[in-house]
């Protein structure tokens, strides 16, 4: 291998998913050189005209990234990901719009095909849409703004003298930059994402949604989401992501920091459908105050490799966390997902319910980590994980970890792994369903406990994703 090609691309095998798989031209886009240098980091910072503290934070993070080693013996192999061939910043030449008509046509078409403007009209309180490295559209209903809710980009919040100190106070405090190598990378080159502030006592009757679309090939998306739900407030935030398929590796290393104050509630729903050349190395974390509630609903369908373990710190007494998740791993996918809950407050409760589906050689690994702190009297946690394998070449592993340091706490764990029985297929086929329809019906049924937690249109999207994944499953 002495005469290696000039630009070596990380290649992953190809899966048809035409619904999400359309590419818009990148002509005229601002695209920074591949790789990571202080100059690139300074250029991103200068482009955003950031406060000095943010620039310094980025440069420190870059040092950390270069110093830190990859975790060894952890999860799926990511050696195919070569940062020297990833552009960390790609921006369409457009300003952020508040009206879809002001968004360039190809980008607008992209989001229309993904159903975003329609969902916004019908059932959302506000929408942010990110295309590659920058948010291209951001808007919120008047009546929500009037209640004092802030929903904007972190960049805009940093330019607002009222919110810059708030961002400074919270940003990077839940996920330290040295948490792991890709957290350091994230802080060095983060761009886009959302800043949400819900004032005390305010309940939003409709969700806010941010959608992340990575159109560019051989690029990374590093959005940062910072949400603060003040005392007694209530928010449902939805995050969607997709990308067209390329042969070069793409990288997603976002960070989500959620602050749920006393008596507040936050539901954070995600439908992730990255293309199967994506390395999805994402970090999400929430801290929860007394009597407050954190709810995660997570559907992971895409990506080549995922490392995704949303983490919840139940700090306040009687706070609670519910995690409902599903992952679907098909051919060429190795998805290492799970969740982590740290119960520190007294009388805290955590309940984790996850499903995984593997097919065509897909690999699912579910990790759960429940840590009950010394002072968490009477804390209770239950973890339940069920896996469905659709053939003999796929794989599903469950790795639960529990660390209980309080004698009055109680924890439970159950895991089941199953297959679709021939009797079930016969039963459904003898009522007229084709074999493919029968299998899809069973898989949809298996996923139902998760899809019913989603707003209707996302449940429909999830069922469509399952159908898409199941098509062509029968030889």
């Amino acid at each position: 291998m002495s005469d290696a090609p000039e630009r070596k691309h990380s290649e992953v095998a190809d899966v048809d998913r035409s619904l999400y798989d359309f590419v818009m031209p990148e002509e005229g886009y601002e695209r920074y050189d591949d790789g990571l240098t202080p100059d690139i980091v300074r250029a991103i910072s200068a482009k955003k005209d950031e406060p000095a503290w943010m620039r310094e934070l980025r440069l420190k993070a870059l040092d950390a990234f270069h110093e830190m080693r990859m975790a060894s013996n952890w999860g799926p192999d990511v050696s195919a990901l070569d940062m020297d061939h990833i552009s960390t910043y790609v921006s369409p030449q457009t300003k952020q719009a508040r009206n879809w008509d002001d968004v360039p046509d190809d980008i607008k078409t992209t989001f229309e095909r993904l159903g975003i403007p329609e969902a916004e009209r019908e059932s959302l309180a506000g929408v942010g849409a990110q295309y590659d490295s920058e948010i291209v559209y951001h808007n919120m209903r008047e009546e929500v703004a009037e209640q004092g809710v802030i929903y904007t980009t972190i960049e805009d919040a940093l330019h607002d003298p009222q919110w810059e100190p708030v961002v400074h106070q919270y940003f990077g405090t839940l996920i330290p930059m040295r948490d792991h190598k890709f957290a350091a990378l994230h802080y060095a080159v983060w761009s886009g994402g959302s800043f949400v502030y819900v004032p005390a006592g305010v309940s939003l009757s409709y969700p806010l949604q941010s959608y992340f679309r990575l159109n560019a090939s051989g690029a990374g998306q590093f959005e940062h989401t910072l949400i603060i739900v003040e005392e007694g407030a209530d928010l449902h935030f939805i995050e969607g992501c997709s990308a067209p398929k390329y042969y070069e590796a793409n990288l997603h290393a976002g960070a989500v920091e959620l602050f749920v104050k006393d008596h507040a509630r936050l539901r954070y729903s995600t439908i992730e459908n990255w293309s199967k050349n994506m390395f999805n190395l994402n970090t999400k974390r929430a801290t929860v105050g007394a009597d407050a509630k954190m709810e995660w609903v997570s559907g992971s369908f895409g990506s080549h490799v995922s490392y995704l373990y949303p983490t919840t710190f139940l700090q306040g007494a009687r706070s609670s966390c519910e995690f409902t998740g599903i992952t679907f791993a098909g051919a060429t996918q190795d998805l290492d997902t799970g969740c982590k809950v740290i119960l520190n407050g007294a009388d805290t409760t955590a309940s984790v319910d996850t499903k995984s589906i593997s097919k065509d050689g897909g690999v699912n690994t579910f990790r759960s980590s429940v840590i009950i702190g010394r002072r968490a009297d009477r804390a209770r946690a239950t973890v339940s994980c069920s896996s469905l394998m659709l053939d003999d070449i796929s794989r599903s592993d469950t790795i639960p970890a529990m660390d209980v340091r309080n004698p009055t706490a109680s924890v439970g764990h159950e895991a089941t792994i199953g297959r679709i029985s021939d009797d079930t297929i016969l039963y459904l086929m003898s009522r007229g369903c084709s074999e493919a329809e029968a299998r899809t019906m069973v898989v949809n049924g298996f996923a139902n406990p998760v899809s019913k937690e989603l707003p209707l249109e996302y449940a429909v999207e999830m069922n469509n994703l399952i159908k898409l994944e199941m098509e062509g499953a029968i030889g």
Partner: protein
Amino acid sequence: MQDTLLTIDGLSAGTEDKPILHDIHLELGSGQTHVLMGPNGAGKSTLGHVIMGDPSYQVTSGSITFDGADITDLTSDKRSLAGIFLSYQAPVEVPGVPLYSFLRTICQMRPELKTTARKFRERVGQICEQLELSDSFLMRELNVGFSGGEKKKVEMLQLLLLQPKLAILDETDSGLDVDALSIVSRGIEAYRAQCDGTLLVITHNTRILERLDVDRTHVMVRGHLVAEGDASLVGEIDASGFSRFEDELAAKGGVA
């Protein structure tokens, strides 16, 4: 001369390592009610499953003709769409699939049953009333946690919705209690009245037949059809069991 709906001609079938059915000949005329009886393990259920196209059994010789077409090689879904229905002894549970949407799906895939949501709802409501099945079951997951009797009702509900040309009721070992018995009887009566279809009732329990006008009775022993007669054969079996047929088969050397 009545039209023939189903013709089984010289059919032998079994699992990979074990022949079960031997040279079966059977004709079911349109609109007739046939009963298939026989001791435990005779292969009655297997015959029902083979007619439905259960891939766990392989047909080694012979053919099945339904409604003028050779269906021997068709998959179960094609046979279902052609008008064959098999009510299972022990219907499977399908978690996460609501009964109502399942019913809607299996009806909408048949051009002759396609209808508006409202008409469909009314039709399901009517049948539920006939079967004394509470509406609340419609929102529950298909058969999940249902009692034996409730599962039977759901089978009868599907039978009446799909209105198949041929209904095979596999009641072999279902230890039918009085309730389940009356549910199946009610389903059969409604099916006979509303669909005028052909029935093949597989059982060794003669009580289920008390309220039924039986045209022909067939007796199966060790995978062979050994006797055929009119309704009076049911009474005879009720009185003296299957030993006469077993002895006759043994005398002929027809041991599988």
